[in-house]
């Protein structure tokens, strides 16, 4: 059933968030440390184990795949609720600080990702194939 997939995703999400908050408390910081990342690891490992045992039916997968496909619309909504006015009103200094940081980090991407060998590019994708 589709709800099994959604529930699996929800369970991984909540477990990750819980551990991320707990990690924040342990480290003494007022933030969730890696909750989303931990949840992703749970989902990857659990779904992989279930698929190998043939326990993840296609309908169940649909319960996860739907939320993955709705990701870009959610990101568009996220963009539409940003405080763009505040970012533009922050003045020239905020603009310089923010954008210069981005430029420096862009430049560092190839420097660090080349360490220990370049990764394999993803296969080219038919653009019509997106969610």
């Amino acid at each position, binding site marked *: 059933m589709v709800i099994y997939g959604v529930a699996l995703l929800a369970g991984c999400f909540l477990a990750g968030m819980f551990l991320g908050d707990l990690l*924040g408390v342990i480290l003494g910081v007022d933030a969730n440390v890696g909750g989303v990342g931990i949840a992703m690891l749970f989902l990857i490992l659990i779904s992989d184990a279930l698929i190998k045992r043939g326990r993840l039916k296609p309908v169940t997968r649909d319960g996860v795949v739907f939320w993955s496909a709705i990701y870009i619309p959610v990101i568009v909504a996220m963009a539409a609720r940003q405080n763009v006015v505040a970012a533009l009103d922050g003045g020239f200094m905020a603009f*310089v600080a923010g954008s210069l*940081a981005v430029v420096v980090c862009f430049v560092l991407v190839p420097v660090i990702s080349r360490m220990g060998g370049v990764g394999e590019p993803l296969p080219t994708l038919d653009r019509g194939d997106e969610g």
Partner: protein
Amino acid sequence: MSALETLSSVLVSNGLITAFAFVGVVIWLSYLVSNKLTGGRIHGSAIAILAGLALAWVGGAVTGGSAGLADISVLTGVGFMGGGMLRDFTIVATAFGVNFDEIRRAGLSAALSLVAGVLGSFVVGALVAYAFGYTDAVSITTIGAGAATYIVGPVTGSAIGASSDVIALSIAAGLVKSMMVMTGTPFVAKAIGLDNAKSAMVFGGLMGTTSGVAGGLAATDKRLVPYGAMTATFYTGLGCLLGPSILYFAVRALVG
């Protein structure tokens, strides 16, 4: 009650559903623009995210609120749809089908990118603050932390006792960063080799802003999203850890 009032009350009381319909139309128009006006050269999702930011500006300018389009009463559902809960839930969902070995292989570079990302943004932000005439350690640290993310800035600022206008500046710097990453990534993706799982993980660790990374990678290639998001999610925590402690002490030692 007029028909228009009835319509608006239906839209308001069914906010999330209204948001689904609204975002659907925005995306449809964006792909139309992408195909017809740019011949598919600028990705439809990149245009949709830009359109979202432009609409957010309109919403903020019209209402004077801080939640962009979501401050317009019939579109409050956009705020829920694009809020942290659904954003993080769908990001986790993108990890479905990801190859665990890819993540393990890139683990060391990803960890390195997190440290380099926090330090790099902080140093740049702190130098800019200094160049603009801030000489006290608290303000320099807070603005530097804001250049990391718009959460690290205020968390650090409140911890070390920065003034509220400096904290506002640090949030603005973080917002600028997040929006630059969202809109700039598809244009530099090729030049910085952003076409594989490893570089996406490094990218997430260097940029750190969850919304920026999520939007930027979505506009570049959706398959890169889980890898970038995976590392980016550790960034804000690391920044909140280092900002008010080591980084503040280092700045204080330098400027006295």
